[in-house]
């Protein structure tokens, strides 16, 4: 596993370049801020991205279960799902890493053995990107869900408190008892 070794050795540089590329998906002034401000509370987008990419880089080299992948990827995607990005823009930053690695190890990849490893690596990156898209879709679903929940709670709870909603009582009167649906094979009895 020559490539993994190379990647591990140059992890800091690789992650920095990956981070720089991701930051470029933001307008210039914002990109500067995301790189400059190191306080995680003053710059949650920058710090979440930085920490997430670092952890994901490790996962790509060392492997990791889906729970771990989710825990690193979710915070980044959760942010990008709200920002001014199309779905592809929100998730495609994962793919940037392929090019960064290719550019950095152009010579080494000329070796067929490393090339083979590089292809495996890119396939893992692709999987990560697909996972990112799953998370993106889930975040958007959550967004619509909380929007409708909020609307429901605002109106329904007010109706409920005002006594305009009548729950089904525990003890039902016989005339209101629901009709039992026939069980299949039971219709002739």
């Amino acid at each position: 596993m020559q490539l993994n070794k190379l990647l591990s050795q140059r992890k800091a540089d690789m992650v920095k370049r990956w981070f720089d590329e991701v930051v470029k998906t933001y307008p210039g002034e914002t990109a500067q801020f995301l790189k400059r401000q190191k306080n995680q509370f003053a710059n949650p987008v920058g710090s979440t991205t930085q920490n997430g990419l670092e952890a994901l880089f490790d996962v790509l080299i060392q492997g990791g279960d889906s729970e771990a992948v989710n825990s690193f990827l979710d915070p980044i995607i959760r942010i990008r799902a709200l920002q001014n990005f199309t779905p592809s823009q929100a998730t495609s930053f994962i793919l940037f890493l392929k090019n960064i690695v290719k550019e950095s190890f152009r010579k080494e990849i000329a070796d067929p053995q490393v090339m083979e490893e590089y292809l495996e690596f890119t396939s893992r990156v692709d999987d990560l990107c697909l996972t990112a898209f799953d998370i993106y879709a889930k975040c958007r679903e959550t967004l619509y869900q909380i929007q409708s929940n909020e609307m429901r709670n605002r109106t329904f709870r007010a109706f409920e408190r005002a006594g305009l909603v009548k729950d089904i009582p525990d003890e039902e009167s016989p005339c209101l008892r629901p009709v039992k649906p026939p069980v299949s094979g039971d219709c002739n009895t």
Partner: protein
Amino acid sequence: MSDFPKPDQLLSNIDRTPPRTDWMDTPVNIRKGMYCYAANPKSVEYTHLPFPHQWNPTEEDWHLPENWKEILHEGFKVRLERFRSFKIFMDICVRCGACADKCHFFIGTGDPKNMPVLRAELLRSVYRNDFTLAGKLLGRVAGARPMTMDVLKELWYYFFQCTECRRCSVFCPYGIDTAEITMMARELFNLIGLNIDWIATPVANCYRTGNHLGIQPHAFKDMLDFFVDDIEEITGIRVEPNFNKKGADILFITPSGDVFADPGTYTCMGYLLLFHYLKEVYGLDVTWSTYASEGGNFGSFTSHEMMKRLNSKMYAEAKRLGVKWILGGECGHMWRVINQYMGTMNGPADFLEDPVSPITGTLFENARSTKMVHISEFTADLIKHGKLNLDPSRNDNLILTFHDSCNPSRGMGMLDEPRYVIQNVANHFYEMPPNTIREQTFCCGSGSGLNAGEDMELRMAGGLPRANAVKYVHEKHGVNMLATICAIDRAALPTLMDYWVPGVGVTGVTEMVANALILPGEGERTTNLRGEPLPGMEDE
């Protein structure tokens, strides 16, 4: 097959880089999820605001009056002459950038036009063009640009991405109050009927019926009666609130959100229990009003005249009922209006007495002009003097942190009183990191009338810095409850937590006070005001 795009054509649609143009050349893109719906013309008309009309922010034509540019120019001129602060704020910014990265909307959305300096620059550029010699002569070189339809749309879009929270002002070396720039911009929009409905309709309801939702007096009383029943079920005590009682000691006013929206309703039950206790033990006579049934002042997001009108009804009611002074509930902008503007707007309220707590004898000197005292300050004073019988262990299921609401913290400097109360009614409290609390608190992202449903992406992005700090204490200390003293927070933060930090609830401070308060003659309590089992009572 000839129509089918080639792979490189397909991929060329995926643009990975944002525009690198100068801000003046970057056109506004009014994006769904980031703006609120246009005001219902009926609501605009009811409050006699100019030019009520149907329009849609995403449509090309906003159906403005023909002379809209003249109206805006004249409105701008009048405000520059009338408000010296506005003129100064337009002139003195040196674009040092100290505020640039302090805005929660900039931090969350990553949109540079949400840097407070640039947001203000959107308006300043028009100011320079219309009112300064350099701007008139040099135009764009001097940072000036004429008002056009595109400029107006840009102004509208971004000044409704500001919650007037004033965090940026804390960092401005010149003390520019950027919130007041937003207020002026919104006043200008109102001159041509460009308000949002989440503000305009609550304002009309408040003006006509007395509260944001337009709940009539009998329904307001009904709601409180439901709480009385719930309280009896939980504590075995039947509280008897006064309504519109002439000659009561104190008039109590709170945002109507506390009466109608969870979890504010539990805070409202908390007020009822606290007042019952004070009546039983000390004979304090507090009355609610079904007419001044709203503390919140959405007028302040509309125009200073509207703010004044809505504020005045609270004082008219205090006068009518002949109370000594006013006690105010856990609200946000009500306190901003009271503390920053009331004294010279409708005040001083000389017909009321200087507010003295009849129980402790404390004179609330800071409220001498407005005669209105904050419930947290009032409660902290009671606790300090040992006047409340409390059992904080009843809140042992809560691991708390406190979100400083922008208006009470930055707008009136109330930082320690709510913390003092919390630490006396609960045992587990952890602060969020220092650069996210007190004067530097991060906004909920939904203030100043932006707590609508249709702008959910804006709200979630704007609330990110706050949620990020909550997430930190949630993971570090197991915080499961976010306490706050603002009705907008109580409405907005549960949704924010659902997106960013599931597992953290939201509570008002007085709700916890009431849970801890031991009432004379109460039965054994097994649940809190939410009907959840008290610690140790899970099996009851």
